[in-house]
């Protein structure tokens, strides 16, 4: 029970997906022009993530290691198709608003990241807790970012006017540049908090400390390659 709670709560703060693990940036940027859209996107992700975690965990011992990624993608894709149809039936305006980002949940790194990092190694119940926690953390983050952008960019929150009719909306915030800058500043804030906490506890932080997307190995492979290329470039100069 205690471990169930632990897996559930880590997604809410310690490993908050978009802000701490830096996973699933595309939807985080794209659908947070209003708080409502963020909430809707989050709900769809909770559904897919929790179920895909459970299913993957159930079949984790059957899937051959070599084709596991394709299997994970196929499982996630079937769930996304289910979400698409549910949204078309019960929340059509939201479905229209989110546009292509509903089908793109398939390639959201949160789904594959959690499948690889957690569900493929743990029993179903724990995986469910992990999926729910991560999904709820993702939803809260999206709603938070959406609330900031909506309240500055349109002067409303969940469609309710905040500052009265005299407010001049800061349109930058609801457009693409505002999304990037806003998320960047939030991430910087999270990093600042991390550094401050580490200093208070007297822990030395890793000097190469970088909030990278730890879920998918893609960036790490790239980093290695970049470092290698740099070395090659430097070598002749040294020799």
């Amino acid at each position: 029970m205690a471990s169930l709670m632990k897996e559930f709560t880590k997604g809410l703060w310690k490993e908050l997906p978009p802000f701490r693990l830096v996973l699933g940036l595309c939807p985080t940027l794209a659908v947070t022009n209003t708080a409502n859209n963020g909430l809707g996107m989050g709900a769809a992700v909770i559904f897919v993530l929790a179920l895909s975690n459970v299913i993957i965990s159930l079949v984790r011992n059957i899937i051959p290691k070599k084709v596991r990624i394709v299997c994970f993608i196929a499982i996630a894709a079937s769930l996304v198709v289910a979400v698409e149809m549910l949204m078309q039936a019960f929340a059509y305006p939201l479905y229209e608003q989110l546009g292509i980002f509903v089908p793109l949940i398939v390639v959201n790194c949160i789904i594959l990241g959690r499948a690889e990092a957690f569900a493929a190694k743990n029993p179903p119940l724990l995986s469910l807790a992990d999926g729910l926690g991560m999904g709820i953390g993702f939803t809260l983050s999206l709603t938070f970012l959406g609330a900031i952008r909506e309240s500055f960019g349109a002067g409303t929150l969940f469609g309710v006017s905040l500052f009265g009719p005299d407010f001049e909306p800061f349109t930058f915030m609801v457009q693409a540049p505002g999304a990037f800058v806003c998320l960047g500043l939030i991430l910087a804030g999270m990093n600042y908090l991390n550094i401050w906490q580490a200093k208070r506890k007297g822990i030395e932080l890793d000097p190469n400390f970088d909030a990278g997307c730890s879920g998918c190995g893609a960036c790490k492979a790239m980093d290695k390659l970049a470092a290698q290329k740099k070395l090659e470039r430097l070598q002749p100069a040294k020799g």
Partner: protein
Amino acid sequence: METFLLFISAIFVNNIVLAQYLGNCPYLGCSKEKGVAFGMGAAVIFVTIMATLFTHIIQQYVLFPFHLAYLQTIVFILVIAALVQFVEMFLKKMVPPLYKSLGIFLPLITTNCAVLGVAILVQRKEYDLVTSVIYAVAAATGFLLALILMAGIRERFEVTRIPRSMRGVPIGLVMAGLMSLAFMAFKGMIA
């Protein structure tokens, strides 16, 4: 003329990374070195064109006639995954030099949302086959452009004193915001 406008607008005005928020993970992850950025961009161009072509044909000649359009997402992602595998095997056998430069990027592209995004986008906009492929070329070129610009700027970051909490992804995102702001100026060019 219209096609030309579509081409230009997909590269600059509706840039896939900076205006449509697609492919952000490689945009931030693979932009630390110009050579890597170029390799990734080239691989994305290659796969996006192939994927759009194949998914378009499948959508028009398999999914629509058999009333299976609701399976679009699952079919497209599996087609892309299979395609990437085939391209990798083909290049390895037939064009080893190209494989050497693009090979490592190919497996990463399966889960790049720019590829699936473009494939779905052209279906939603109901472009015909030729227009779809042109759009795919333009969108992927826009991705390459954004990636290389970002890599160029990021190489300067290494010799710059950045506040510790801003290092890495946060400064990258703020930079992307400024670039996106600059790219918004291209809107006047088309309209």
